[in-house]
């Protein structure tokens, strides 16, 4: 058993979320997956958008007949549910399509699911979460090794992102306080917020920090552990590139939340044409600017670094 554990490293899990719908999460996830697969990495995409599973469309294949429902209802092993994605090195696992209602999975079921995901035979498992900041979505998001968020340069997408990240952080904090027997502290503080003069995220954090040395330590550890990877999709001008830097800055300076701005993808009408034709963009237009941008951000994700730093590194290499 020990030998087995050494030989078979469990896959790295990336989840993609971000609050608002229609920001291109599924497109980004499938494209990043293809990039990894083309590099020879074994990838499994999981469509956990329980309301509207449609990742197969981005890959240009038909809706698979089997889904996660079979895992829960018929106890079929997860690896038997992975179908061919049509791309070498990449498998696809579709979320529930019919019988399971969107919020039908219990927390225990979800933990079981994640245990099995960790045992999948792959290098990377990429999980597409639906839109929204429901705690169910957020719990899945938090179980990842890398939490990716996709935004577009629109005020609502950015607003939802802040909301999503703040919720994600509190969910994580509450879960970890639970193991210290302090589960209700956050809820109680929020319930009596008028009394403590708490109006927003920062004030709540400050209040909690002030409660005890233990609380302060837990919060500080959780804040420094928390990290989101930001992808800015569908930009129209080069000025908009900086929105990623701005969002990253706001998250840090206002909320104390760490993030990495790994890259942007410019607007290309060809992308929606590809989706409608059920064609995989990365394969149909591998030399396009967007494809190159996606390759770059995939590399940044792998390295866990920011987009600007990457350029800097390139510059340094050129100087003899």
């Amino acid at each position, binding site marked *: 058993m020990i030998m087995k554990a050494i030989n078979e490293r469990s896959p790295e899990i990336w989840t993609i979320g971000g609050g608002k719908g229609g920001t291109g999460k599924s497109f980004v996830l499938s494209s990043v997956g293809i990039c990894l697969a083309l590099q020879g990495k074994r990838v499994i995409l999981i469509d956990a958008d329980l309301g509207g599973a449609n990742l197969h469309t981005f890959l240009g294949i038909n809706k698979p007949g089997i889904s996660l429902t079979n895992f829960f209802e018929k106890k079929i092993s997860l690896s038997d549910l992975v179908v061919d994605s049509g791309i070498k090195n990449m498998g696809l696992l579709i979320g529930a399509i019919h019988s399971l209602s969107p919020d039908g999975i219990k927390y225990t079921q979800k933990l079981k699911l994640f245990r099995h995901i960790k045992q999948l035979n792959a290098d990377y498992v990429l999980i597409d979460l639906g839109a929204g900041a429901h705690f169910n979505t957020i719990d899945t998001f938090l179980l990842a090794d890398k939490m990716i968020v996709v935004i577009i340069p629109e005020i609502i997408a950015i607003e939802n992102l802040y909301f999503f990240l703040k919720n994600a952080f509190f969910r994580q904090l509450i879960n970890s306080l639970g193991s210290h027997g302090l589960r209700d502290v956050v809820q109680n503080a929020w319930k009596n917020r008028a009394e403590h003069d708490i109006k927003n995220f920062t004030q709540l954090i400050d209040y909690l920090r002030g409660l005890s040395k233990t609380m302060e330590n837990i919060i500080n550890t959780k804040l420094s552990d928390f990290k989101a990877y930001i992808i800015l999709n569908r930009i129209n001008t080069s000025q908009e590139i900086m929105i990623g830097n701005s969002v990253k800055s*706001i998250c840090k300076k206002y909320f104390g939340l760490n993030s990495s701005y790994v890259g942007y993808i410019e607007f290309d009408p060809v992308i929606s044409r590809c989706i409608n034709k059920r064609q995989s963009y990365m394969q149909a237009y591998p030399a396009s600017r967007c494809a190159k941008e996606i390759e770059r951000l995939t590399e940044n994700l792998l390295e866990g670094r920011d987009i600007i730093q990457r350029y800097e590194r390139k510059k340094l290499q050129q100087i003899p």
Partner: protein
Amino acid sequence: MSGKNYSKYLETLELPPGASLSEIRKAYQHLKVLYSRESIVTLPIEDEISAEVKRQILRQIEEAYQGLLVSFEKEEDTLENEMSSRPEMKNYEQTSVELTTFTGQALRKIRERLNIDLQDIALSTRVQTQYLNDIELENFEALPPEAYTRGFIISYAEYLSLDSKKVVDDYMSRYSVWKDEQEKKT
């Protein structure tokens, strides 16, 4: 580069260790605008942050920038003592402020002084490296129609944190002379 607050300042400006002067300048300008004006990034959380917190962030940014400039100047001094044989290695700030003619050659000098590659400018401005090179060579015939060239020069100048209006007016005055000559020929 050293100084006891050096890494703290870089962190405030959200820069990696070893950031160049031009990166520091750009980060400073970006953050200053971000925290003093309304934008789609800050509007959603207007009600969450008090004016006092905002002012404090701006103060920290300002302090970090000024602090970093000082440490760069110190390094500059030692550098200058070592390279006294190169008078053109003067303070960049002074050079660019004193300059009134921005020939392609002058622009290249400023760029090289800032240790910036054409590729960096191309990546950020989306102007092809070839055109940027032609701008520096004042290779007017290779440049696109006037309106585009104008835009390219503005982007280029902004990247170098120069007064883009001054640069473009001066540069285009030579371009116009060349264009008139071309028209006379035909």
